[in-house]
């Protein structure tokens, strides 16, 4: 797991870059420029996906590119939910085709970011390919729609195993599985069973369970009680958005999607930010931190550390905040601040 693609052409990695919609393209540009500025040995293969087209050629090209490169960075692709079911979410297609079964989001309170709760440090592991996102729906009788939620033993064991291994690697002491097995006895019951089975093989890590509605209630009152949370797809959607909101919003938290063979990095809460697109006001933090996760994955820790430290210090020390954090800085103000931070402490960079 997590074997990076072999470096080609003299130690440089090729990474697929899908700008996406809304604020995606401008943020993707910032990442590219910053990587160039830092002399990061990564070449981006730009793959545009036009989400307004009903044909799936673009997304298939993207999938092929990722199969080739093994790793990708992406912005969110808009899904027009008024189109018929034949038009599938491009983001979901990527995840399922590449079997990116594990979504990881690390939500941490940052000093200098004003939030109602402090000292939050939660790692969320979300099953990323099945559950409610199986896209299996039919209208059995006019006016009656059935939507199938699929839970399998194989995928539940797999995600649980991923969680426990990740917990060990990151010094996490406790995993809480989130479910609704009191109502969905078979589906979530199976998921829980698999989690318990895997947990028994990791006696060093504590394991408990929590019903999803109680989990959200606990999160808004005492989020500090959680360490790592593990759950099926839909609850993962809810919990990760709640946690991201608690630590400061969608502009701050990066997300990683891992599969057996591929890895895909993006902003954690997967927002398009359509209303603030092209206004130079988006918060680039989440995307930049995602690019650092990418660099970690490519085993380029020095570059990852350099960019991450500069990005975080801009938020926490310099307190250069965009509108979403209550500030008045523009995206380019923030980028400039990050470049300055890198320039002053990092290795030789391109001249500003």
């Amino acid at each position, binding site marked *: 797991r997590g074997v990076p693609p072999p470096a080609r052409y003299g130690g440089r990695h090729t990474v697929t870059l899908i700008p996406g919609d809304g604020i995606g393209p401008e943020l993707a540009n910032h990442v590219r420029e910053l990587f160039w500025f830092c002399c990061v040995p990564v070449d981006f293969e730009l793959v545009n996906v036009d989400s307004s087209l009903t044909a799936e050629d673009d997304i298939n090209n993207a999938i092929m590119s990722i199969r080739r490169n093994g790793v990708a960075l992406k912005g969110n692709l808009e899904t027009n939910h008024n189109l018929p079911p034949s038009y599938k979410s491009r983001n979901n297609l990527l995840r399922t085709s590449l079997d990116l079964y594990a979504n990881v989001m690390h939500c941490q309170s940052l000093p200098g970011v004003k939030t109602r709760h402090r000292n939050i440090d939660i790692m969320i592991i979300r099953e990323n390919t099945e559950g409610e996102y199986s896209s299996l729906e039919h209208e059995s009788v006019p006016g009656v729609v059935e939507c199938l939620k699929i839970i399998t033993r194989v995928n539940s064991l797999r995600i649980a195993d991923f969680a426990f291994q990740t917990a060990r690697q990151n010094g996490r002491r406790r995993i809480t599985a989130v479910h609704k097995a009191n109502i969905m006895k078979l589906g979530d019951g199976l998921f829980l069973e698999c989690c318990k089975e895997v947990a028994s093989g990791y006696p060093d890590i504590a394991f408990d369970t929590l019903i999803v509605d109680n989990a959200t209630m606990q999160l808004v*009152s005492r989020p500090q009680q959680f360490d790592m949370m593990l759950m099926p797809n839909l609850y993962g959607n809810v919990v990760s958005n709640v946690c991201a*909101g608690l630590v400061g919003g969608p502009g701050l938290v990066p997300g990683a999607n891992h599969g057996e063979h591929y890895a895909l990095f993006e902003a954690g809460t997967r927002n398009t930010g359509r209303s603030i697109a092209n206004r130079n006001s988006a918060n680039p933090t989440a995307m930049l931190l995602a690019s650092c996760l990418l660099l970690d994955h490519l085993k380029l820790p020095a570059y990852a550390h350099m960019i991450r430290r500069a990005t975080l210090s801009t938020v926490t020390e310099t307190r250069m905040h965009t509108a979403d954090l209550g500030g008045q800085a523009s995206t380019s103000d923030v980028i400039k601040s990050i470049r300055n931070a890198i320039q002053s402490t990092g290795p030789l960079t391109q001249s500003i």
Partner: protein
Amino acid sequence: VAMAGNAWRSMIHTVTMIPGDGIGPEISSAVMKIFEAAKAPIQWEERNVTAIKGPGGKWMIPPDAKESMDQSKIGLKGPLKTPIAAGHPSMNLLLRKTFDLYANVRPCVSIEGYKTPYTDVNLVTIRENTEGEYSGIEHVIVDGVVQSIKLITEDASRRIAEYAFEYARNNQRSSVTAVHKANIMRMSDGLFLRKCREVAETYKDIKFTEMYLDTVCLNMVQDPTQFDVLVMPNLYGDILSDLCAGLIGGLGVTPSGNIGANGVAIFESVHGTAPDIAGLDMANPTALLLSAVMMLRHMGLHEYGKKIETACFDTIRDKKVLTKDLGGNSKCSEFTADICRRVVDMD
């Protein structure tokens, strides 16, 4: 009931009271004491709803309970024990099916005096309560593969949407937001959305918006003041209504109402039976009391509702006789007596 306002207000209304289990009886009696002090025109008919096996072998609620509810149309219910015995259905589920309680309504308003990190919360979650992900239809397809079916129908979606807009109108709320995940669940949530949009057309005075479930969650924990009335299918409603309850202080202070077909409405506290403190005069009756206030408003008895609610909030704000869960050291009876005193003083 087509009765002139004054006549309606001076009539004595019968309400079916279901005390429930655990702390149920003591918080119910607290509510009844407060209503008496407020001289509310309510006559309580106590009933037990523990399931019994009917003639056909089917589980049902006792006939006298059903009769009382069918007559009075209004119920107030304390927490019910979850039965462990196999075959015995969930009591809440049985009530829901018996009276076709299709809408679960939870107004979430920040309680001044009970501090949480969130102030100024003032929203209402309206949850479709009969279908969706809770249809209970699950199959093992092959060993290790389970399928749970989420059912969305045109009729149930239309009905809940209509209720939501009607509620908004009757309670002077300005907007209704449909919460969905139609980007992923295109057909099911898409159908739900379409029905909401159709109903919105006939309520032009109410603003209608749509928002993804994840966006609602993300925004709710950052700024809950942007939300007004939220309408959604069963599972999202379950999660969001509890999330919102968490914002204002938890299930111990959150009211809830269930609206059924044929004019039936059952208001309830949604916390547990708290067996560890049952009978010790330690329980907090706020949730049941606020549900009873919701009930009074539903019945058009707004002045009594306002009076009792104000007394309750004043007692909490005063902080002198709070129960343990609210951070105090007082007994349930002392808390209740304080509210009664305030209610009497208001007259």
